[in-house]
């Protein structure tokens, strides 16, 4: 079974600084998707960024970028120019490729990292 591990229960950053959240995963599959979700106090789950495993290029969305190391099974999230609105719980998630239809799109989540942003 796939597992996702976020080893940092809490992280903090100063406003305008850069912070990196770590995520590692374990899988025997070669094709899969990785996600970072943000959950603010409202409980809403917001997709931050997505990475397809077959793409070597790291995904980027504005101030958010990932460092995807497939061989090391590592998928870290870098937040640049941190803003107060970035404060939230962040979840890393894994999904097997839907090739063959057997994965049914099931997501496996990490434990979450609470990010605090100091003004």
């Amino acid at each position, binding site marked *: 079974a796939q597992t996702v591990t*976020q080893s940092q229960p809490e992280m903090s950053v100063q406003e305008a600084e850069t912070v990196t959240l770590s995520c590692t995963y374990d899988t025997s599959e070669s094709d899969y998707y990785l996600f970072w979700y943000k959950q603010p106090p409202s409980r*809403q*789950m917001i997709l931050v960024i997505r990475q397809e495993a077959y793409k070597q290029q790291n995904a980027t969305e504005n101030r958010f970028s990932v460092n995807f190391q497939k061989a090391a099974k590592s998928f870290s999230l870098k937040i640049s120019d941190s803003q107060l609105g970035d404060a939230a719980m962040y979840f890393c998630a894994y999904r097997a490729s839907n090739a063959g239809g057997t994965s*049914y*799109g*099931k*997501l496996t*989540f990490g*434990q*979450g990292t609470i990010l605090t942003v100091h003004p």
Partner: protein
Amino acid sequence: DAGITQSPRHKVTETGTPVTLRCHQTENHRYMYWYRQDPGHGLRLIHYSYGVKDTDKGEVSDGYSVSRSKTEDFLLTLESATSSQTSVYFCAISDLDRGNYGYTFGSGTRLTVV
């Protein structure tokens, strides 16, 4: 979120009582999921559905059952609630058939079993 609603948003119930949570979608997506969120565990899959009357167990299915008699509704039932089932429950939908990688999550139900 638009297209998916969970009800109720909060519920307090007594140990041993049955509880049903409802997930309703207006997106006509085939895939629906129930997760529970607990501190230190992230979100864990309880049950999922890949079509009307097609459901299967996730990693933490003990004590839970589901039903999907219509595309738009996915019900999660706790037959006899226990304190260990106190949690926040999320429903999610996905449109995998059209190559969509995204998921839409409901706003969650906070369930407290006393």
